[in-house]
């Protein structure tokens, strides 16, 4: 009976050109790492044959193949035909589509600032108390995830609108283990050691860091990750939260201090490949390639977990390149903070299939099939960590689970004009030689202007 179900789903999927259920990457029931019981339970509970669900997300290219491999399981289990789409300017596209009244059923977005905007216009459907309780109980550090997905609606009342799914860890430093071995360097365990290592490499005649802020219209964003990471290592998480919501101004000593911490690394000609002047002009996608040059152009690169896709072809993680946790100061009692980012799923058009999809994201299998491939981390406690497709992912998963503090990328939480505008350009100015106080004052002035 199951096979006929799959066949009909597949036939209807072929007609519409959508994901075909036969493309299941891992045969159901076979690999013990996967929670197939959750898949079977879900399939038994939902029978929505013939329904269609449009999903709009930020993943394109290889990432699109990954998300579609996950969606294929949803199709096979629920009978819903899924049409996934994305576009380069998905931020604008989702605004146009929701405001004009032709939204997709489900939207997945990485910017909480944008989601807050959509929620305040009444364009999203609340996910309800049951989902809120589920997140709290089943995600590691559940409260912080609930607050991440909670926004003020059109009526001004806060409610859970977005479901966090797929997390990136940002507090990572990438390096080539063999280059460290050749030079006799050890992976630093504290920020003090990291700074000492930086000076040591310079003393040995090398260049410690590759830093590139270039990213077309978004130039400057990699520096915001640096500053946020430094902020979490020099100030309390509460200060971080206040900074993000502008309860303390950008010109607060804590913020200016964090910017200058970044400047310690980036504004020293000897610390950065190409000199400090090259920081703002080097493209962030080309920057890590210096690690692999001969002789190495640099020894370390600070970037989120996605960066291996820009390593030279054939680079094996764990062998040719590896990463370590961006350490915290031993002298400051701030624990092990982790900065991250992620995507959140929300219902833009309510319906049976949309609700079923959110329920699907609560099954371990929806996480495990993506974990087993690449580029996917989850704080979902019931998802089997053994399912992670490679050692690097598993290690990142551990960093995520071992963190004492998890904070979402601050620039994504700030209003778009600041987090995706003034903050970026401010960091480019800072890399160009402007003082941290001037940069902070300029950003705060813009923030005051939009209040």
């Amino acid at each position: 009976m199951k096979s006929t179900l799959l066949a009909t789903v597949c036939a209807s999927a072929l007609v519409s050109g959508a994901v075909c259920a036969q493309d299941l990457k891992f045969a159901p029931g076979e690999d013990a790492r996967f929670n197939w019981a959750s898949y079977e339970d879900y399939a038994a509970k939902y029978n929505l044959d013939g329904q269609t669900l449009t999903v709009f997300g930020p993943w394109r290219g290889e990432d699109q193949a990954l998300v579609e491999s996950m969606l294929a399981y949803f199709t096979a289990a629920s009978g819903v035909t899924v049409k996934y789409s994305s576009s380069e300017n998905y931020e604008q596209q989702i605004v146009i589509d929701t405001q004009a009244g032709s939204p997709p059923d489900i939207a997945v977005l990485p910017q909480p600032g944008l989601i807050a905007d959509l929620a305040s216009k009444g364009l999203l459907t609340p996910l309800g108390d049951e989902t809120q309780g589920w997140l709290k109980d089943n995600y590691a550090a559940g409260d912080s995830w609930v607050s991440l997905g909670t926004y003020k609606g059109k009526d001004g009342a806060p409610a859970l609108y977005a479901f966090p799914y797929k997390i990136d860890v940002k507090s990572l430093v990438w390096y080539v283990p063999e280059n460290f071995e050749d030079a006799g360097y050890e992976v630093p365990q504290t920020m003090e050691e990291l700074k000492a290592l930086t000076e040591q490499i310079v003393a040995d005649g090398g260049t410690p860091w590759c830093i590139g802020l270039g990213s077309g219209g978004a130039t400057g964003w990699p520096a915001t990750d640096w500053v946020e990471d430094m902020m979490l290592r020099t100030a309390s998480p509460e200060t971080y939260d206040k900074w993000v919501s502008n309860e303390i101004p950008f010109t607060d000593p804590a913020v200016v201090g964090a910017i200058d911490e970044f400047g310690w690394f980036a504004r020293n000609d000897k610390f950065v490949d190409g000199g400090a002047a090259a920081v703002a002009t080097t493209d962030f996608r080309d920057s890590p390639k210096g690690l692999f040059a001969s002789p190495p152009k640099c020894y370390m690169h600070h970037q989120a977990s996605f960066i291996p896709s820009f390593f030279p072809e054939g680079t094996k993680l764990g062998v040719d390149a590896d990463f370590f946790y961006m350490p915290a100061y031993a002298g400051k009692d701030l624990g092990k903070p982790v900065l991250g980012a992620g995507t959140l799923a929300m219902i833009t058009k309510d319906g049976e299939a949309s609700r079923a999809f959110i329920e699907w994201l609560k099954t371990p299998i929806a996480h495990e099939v993506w974990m087993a491939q690449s580029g996917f981390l989850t704080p979902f406690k019931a998802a089997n960590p053994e399912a992670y497709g490679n050692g690097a992912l598993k290690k990142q998963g551990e960093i995520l689970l071992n963190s004492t503090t998890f904070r979402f990328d601050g620039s994504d939480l700030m209003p778009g004009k600041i987090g995706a505008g003034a903050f970026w350009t401010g960091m480019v100015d800072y890399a160009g030689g402007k003082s941290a106080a001037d940069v902070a004052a300029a950003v705060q002035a813009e923030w005051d202007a939009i209040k």
Partner: protein
Amino acid sequence: MVTGPKSSFGWVVHLSVVVFVALWMLPTVGLLVSSFRDKDQISVSGWWTALSTSSQNLVFRAPAGDGEEVVNGRYVLKGSVLDGASGQVSAFGFSSREPAAFAPGTVADLKDGVTLTVAGDGAFELSGPASFAEGRGQRIFYTAEVPPRFTLENYRNVLTASGLGRSFLNSMTVAIPSTVIPILIAAFAAYALAWMPFPGRSLMIAAVVGLLVVPLQMSLIPLLKIYNSVGQALGFDPKSYIGIWLAHTGFGLPLAIYLLRNYMAGLPREVMESARLDGATDFQIFTRIVLPLSFPALASFAIFQFLWTWNDLLVALVFLGPQDDKLVLTGRLVNLLGSRGGDWDILAASAFVSIAVPVLVFFAMQKFLVRGLLAGSVKGG
């Protein structure tokens, strides 16, 4: 001085034309060269370095034990660092600290009694007391003179991307009607505005000129709202080909009417008056006289409109949507770039793939383009 001053001036003109053409073409040539280069090379060195033999510092990882032999009690691993490619090794080393410490042919002592030698032709020999099967394979750093190397891989990646043929058809389905419909409407309108006196005619012309400056981005949301409500009332999907044809028609009409009216207004009045004396109606004058005479202007507008609709991404995404079965060529190529972009290999190759059709259209109709560009600017021309 047989040639005289006039022809020496001609020389200067020709020379500067050559210089300007070269300057103008340089970015395109660079993109073309890049499109045939290897993905990793593009990001490491400039396209001009790809044209001649260059000295490069490279890294080769010896296989971990695969193919090793035991000779005189020592494990020996042989192979070539160039791995089949041509080139000449000028130096080698085993540590990232000193990647060019040894001249080719000399023997380098690694730790634990392991020795390494690399010959000028790239052949290496790694020898040691223990098997190399443990560990991850020795890194061999070498400096080599590498001849230019080109690949068709980028084009293969783009052309074999799934759904590309479909998107090609989608783009055609969008672009051709979006070119024909506005021309049909604009030709009638232009004739009326040029040759049929009626009250408020000048005001209408002024309004059309005024519409030229309305940025289309401003009208996207309101227009889509209207589509959605009409679609709901009539019970069909508002995001369809008819929708995008109408949108492109609307966005293209002001320029089309303006261009064609100015051209038609410049046609000789006597021809139309004598035709009217012979009893021709306005419709007959339009189809028999004005349309054939306006052909250069029609053709040039057709080229403009076709290029614009073919290259458009924004309008197609808004009015047709990003769904797989409706995605236009520009959208498909952008999606190939991945979530974070920056794949120069795909970008360069896909630029030339998407350029193919517009170039064909241009060469087929280029003699009208220059004539049409002057449309309206030279009165009675």
